[in-house]
């Protein structure tokens, strides 16, 4: 257990905090975005904000898959289960995400055959077990999850399972980061790069952040010491006027990524010309769809999904929170109408959503919404 203790050792943590204090310019305000929802969760769970100087502001990024899925796509997915003989399968997180006519769980309660699965392979198994029904898998997630959908599709094709399809909502992180960097109301100094996504993508795709935008990015692990060390490395880069991609999570993340995973994705998916992200709007080449070779497994083509566009409930400010313009407690619905029991916005659903993380760990200390 030496390794574990090493990442939790209070003395080591104090040393890194001291290094952060040494590197920081007290007259400067730092805005650092953690891209990954797992980091958002860990920051609040560990109370990392309390260890950091006040002039470091952590901005929560778009790296929570259910949070960035627009409501229209939820409606589109749920329209599939209204076709007779269909079974809609989804991960647990997805089951509680509201569409305009309810969540997948509420559809299930009203009699639709919606089932929670823990793996896309479970959905494929249901299709094998129930050959008279059509089983659709509601696929969401970044590059961490897309390879598992890809391998499941390859498996379906290999086994000739034709009563199975994928409603593909996989998104890719790099175009979203570019959109954030291009956004006029976004002022960021650096990024804490995603850990698990990068095990698949590797570090190369982030080179544009330093090359084109002059911002440091440090791919980080999830331990308190990992994240503090990543912040220290960012501060060193900023102080020295450098902007580079650094890999703090080298023990898990290979520089070139996971080659079999990237290959499986290339075999099954192609880039959509554009895709809508909640809060960020339409971003070109930011999402995946099934390639023509897998048209027979593409739920969008099989069921001719309506492609509805729905604006978020007006009062909920998920978009502003996703862009880092507002903090969760500044939303008028936070903790009142919108809470983990009855989420109105998707950011309150997943444990990786900024609102759910705030609600669980930081609510008491935060200022309430400004009464307007």
């Amino acid at each position, binding site marked *: *257990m*030496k*390794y*574990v203790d090493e*990442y*939790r050792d209070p003395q080591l943590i104090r040393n890194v905090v001291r290094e952060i204090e040494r590197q920081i310019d007290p007259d400067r305000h730092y805005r650092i975005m953690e891209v990954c929802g*797992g980091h958002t*969760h*860990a920051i609040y*769970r*560990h109370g990392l904000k309390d260890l950091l100087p006040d002039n470091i502001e952590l901005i929560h990024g778009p790296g929570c898959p259910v949070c960035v899925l627009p409501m229209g796509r939820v409606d589109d997915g749920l329209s599939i289960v209204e076709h007779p003989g269909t079974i809609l399968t989804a*991960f*647990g997180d997805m089951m509680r995400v509201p569409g305009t006519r309810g969540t997948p769980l509420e559809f299930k309660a009203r009699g639709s055959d919606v089932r929670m*699965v*823990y*793996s*896309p*392979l*479970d959905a*494929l*198994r249901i299709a094998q077990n129930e050959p008279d029904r059509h089983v659709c898998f509601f696929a969401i997630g970044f590059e*961490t*999850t897309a*390879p*598992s959908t890809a*391998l499941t599709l390859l*498996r379906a094709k290999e086994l000739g399972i034709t009563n199975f399809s994928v409603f593909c909502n996989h998104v890719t992180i790099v175009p979203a980061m570019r959109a954030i960097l291009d956004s006029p109301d976004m002022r960021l100094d650096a990024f804490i790069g995603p850990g*698990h996504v990068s*095990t*698949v993508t590797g570090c190369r795709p982030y080179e544009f952040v330093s090359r084109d935008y002059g911002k440091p990015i440090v791919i980080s692990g*999830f*331990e308190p010491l990992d994240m503090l060390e990543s912040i220290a490395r960012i501060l060193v880069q900023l102080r020295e006027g450098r902007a580079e991609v650094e890999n703090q999570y080298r*023990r*898990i993340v290979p520089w070139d990524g*996971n*080659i*079999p*995973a990237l290959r*499986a994705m290339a075999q099954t998916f192609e880039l959509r010309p554009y895709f809508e992200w909640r809060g960020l709007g339409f971003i070109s080449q930011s999402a995946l769809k099934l390639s023509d070779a897998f048209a027979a497994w593409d739920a969008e083509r099989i069921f001719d999904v309506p492609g509805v566009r729905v604006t978020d409930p007006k009062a909920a400010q998920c978009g502003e929170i996703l862009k880092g313009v507002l903090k969760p407690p500044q939303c008028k619905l936070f903790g009142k109408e919108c809470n983990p029991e009855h989420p109105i916005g998707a950011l309150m659903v997943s*444990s990786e959503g900024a609102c759910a993380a705030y609600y669980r760990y930081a609510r008491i200390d935060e200022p309430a919404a400004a009464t307007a």
Partner: protein
Amino acid sequence: MAIPGQIVECNADDPLFAKVDVAGVRRTINVGLIADPGIRPGDWVLIHVGFAMSRIEEDQAREQLELLRMLGEEMPAMEEVRGYAFSDSPEAPT
């Protein structure tokens, strides 16, 4: 969420699948994303939605398990592993 587990048995008939032990719970997972050289019993891997995503060292596996515990994600992680239903005959916890 990445869950650490140890490979206990490879599937000779279908090398894409292997049996893994996660804190005493044994399930079949897909190992098709692990680069050559292929997976061997005793290897530690990080698991996500039924797939081994990367090979790791044993102490990293312990670290990851500890992290899940600290994030309060240990129970959902075990629930996920228990829930993998694609395996033909999941073994009871040992």
